[in-house]
């Protein structure tokens, strides 16, 4: 009697488990198809001519047919935009990580009057939507005469990236042990030398997290170039894309290959470093 009852419960439990997990698995598979389909269609369409896209939007293309890409290469400013994005993002990242580490090191390693206030000052920048301050920023850039100059972007991105970087790195630097530092100090090493040779090699993991958290929004940003940059030759990739999409409105093959080329760098890096990307981009929201 009791054996039968156990058996009955077991069976029910098994069914329930299979049913539930099966349903969850179906949800996941359906969602993954929905997530990937637009990207697959985009990449496929990049290798098709416009009539082919209209006739069979889901068909697998002939991947050796790269006429669209050649057109982009030879007829548009696409490479220029790509290069500009690299320059702006690269310069901003160097500044963010350098300045962010400097501030975090000072706040995390030394006790001094006002250090808490300064940390609060940095953290206040975390929550403020800077888009809404675009008018004074525009005037500021004009007064500094760097409107229509990539320095305006680099400066804004650096300032925007510092709060998160200081936040992540200060916590990390505080958690480092004192022993190495004290030993070096005994040996008469200067403060600068202690920071450079002993502590900095240890903070690399935090730099990676802070770096990824900032590099994606900067690489993808559209709003600040829209306001600050007018010259076509200075435009970054997302902004250049709007120019380009406006020029080729009816040539869908070229449009899709332009989108594919713009998405390619970040998708490829993401596939290789997905773990770091996910950790970095959610690090502000995951305690």
């Amino acid at each position, binding site marked *: 009697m009791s054996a039968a009852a156990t058996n009955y419960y077991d069976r029910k*439990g098994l069914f*329930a488990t299979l049913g539930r*997990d099966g349903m969850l698995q179906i949800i*996941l*598979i359906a*969602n*993954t198809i929905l*997530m*990937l389909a*637009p*990207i697959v269609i985009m990449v496929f369409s990049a290798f098709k001519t416009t009539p082919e*896209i*209209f006739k069979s*939007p889901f068909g697998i293309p002939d991947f050796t047919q790269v006429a669209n890409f050649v057109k982009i290469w030879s007829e548009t400013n696409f490479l220029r935009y790509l290069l500009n994005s690299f320059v702006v993002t690269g310069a901003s990242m160097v500044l963010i990580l350098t300045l962010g580490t*400097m*501030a975090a090191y*000072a*706040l995390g390693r*030394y006790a*001094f009057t006002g250090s808490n206030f*300064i940390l609060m*000052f*940095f953290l206040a*920048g975390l*929550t*403020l*939507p800077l*888009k*809404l*301050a*675009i*008018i004074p920023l525009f005037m*500021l850039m004009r007064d500094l005469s760097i409107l229509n100059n990539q320095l305006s972007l680099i*400066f*804004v991105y*650096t*300032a925007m990236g*510092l*709060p998160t970087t*200081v936040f992540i790195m200060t916590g990390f630097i505080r958690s480092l042990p004192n022993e190495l530092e004290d030993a070096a*100090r005994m040996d008469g090493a200067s*403060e*600068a030398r202690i920071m450079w040779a002993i502590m900095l090699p240890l903070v690399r993991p935090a730099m990676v997290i802070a770096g990824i958290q900032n590099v994606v929004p900067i*690489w*993808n940003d*559209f*709003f600040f170039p829209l306001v600050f940059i007018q010259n076509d030759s200075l435009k970054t990739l*997302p902004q250049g*894309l709007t120019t380009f*999409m406006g020029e080729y409105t009816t040539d869908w093959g070229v449009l899709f290959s332009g*989108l594919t080329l*713009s*998405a390619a760098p970040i*998708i490829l890096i*993401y*596939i290789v470093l*997905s773990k770091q990307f996910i950790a970095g*981009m*959610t690090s502000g*929201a995951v305690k």
Partner: protein
Amino acid sequence: MPQLRMTGRGLWITALIVPPLAFVALFIVYPIVSAFAYAFFDWQGLKRGAFVGLENFHTVLFVEPYRSWTINAFKNNVIVFFALMVLQNGLGFILAYALWRELPGARFHRIAVFLPVVLSTIIVAYLFKLFYHPLFGVVNITLKGIGLGWLAQPWLGQSGTALGSIIVAQAWHMVGFPTLVFLAGMQRIPSEILDAVRMETESEWVKITKIVWPLVAPSATIVFTLLFVGAFNWFELPYIMGGLDGSPFGSTDVLGLYFYRTAFGNVSSGQQDFGLGSALAVIIFIFIAIVAGVITTRLRAREIQL
């Protein structure tokens, strides 16, 4: 930590802290403080005119046609927020729950759901604009292909569907973010609690509503707050897919577009007004700060400390 002893070290700390502080002060704090000041002046193009007190605020809130524009844009932002609450955060919670079970392929699904998050919003906007094309877009072609041709319509071209279509694109773009934040929250639930629950009940529903949901409250607080701030700052997607005027007929107009248009002018009229624009910015800013503050404190209160 060593105390501040000699002037040498004081100088060293100053050298470390001043440059980063200067960047934040000059490019974040100063512009935001100025934005408040700008709103109290009359502006002639880039020239600041007379002090006008609260007149700019009065104009955008109570004088036509600004009044209807403000109300319309605000209403659309509210719709966007609630729709994304369901489509993005709701779906994100379900997906997180599914991923949490570590079924075969979970790693792959996790990478796939986050992939659109790393894409530029501009790419997503153009991609979906092409997909929604009335004649050649894959959305209508698919509907016709599966016998639902009567549903095919100019998604972005009519007032009734335009905003909804853009919201769907946004949900596709960002659903991976709440998913992985919720997933991280679920993974922090101690296994003893889960074992104890398994003894008590077999009901999945009870487990989700009484155990998992309350225990991921900290993740929910963050995800809800970020969605609120994001929804009321919404700009790129409607800018590309609906245009700067929120076409058709203002049905996709949101505060971000309206603010930008007021401050910098649009294609058809080069008229720009920094005074009215700043007043709008200040109103949006204060609204976001207050509501985000309330949301955060309310939601924090229901978080459980483990």
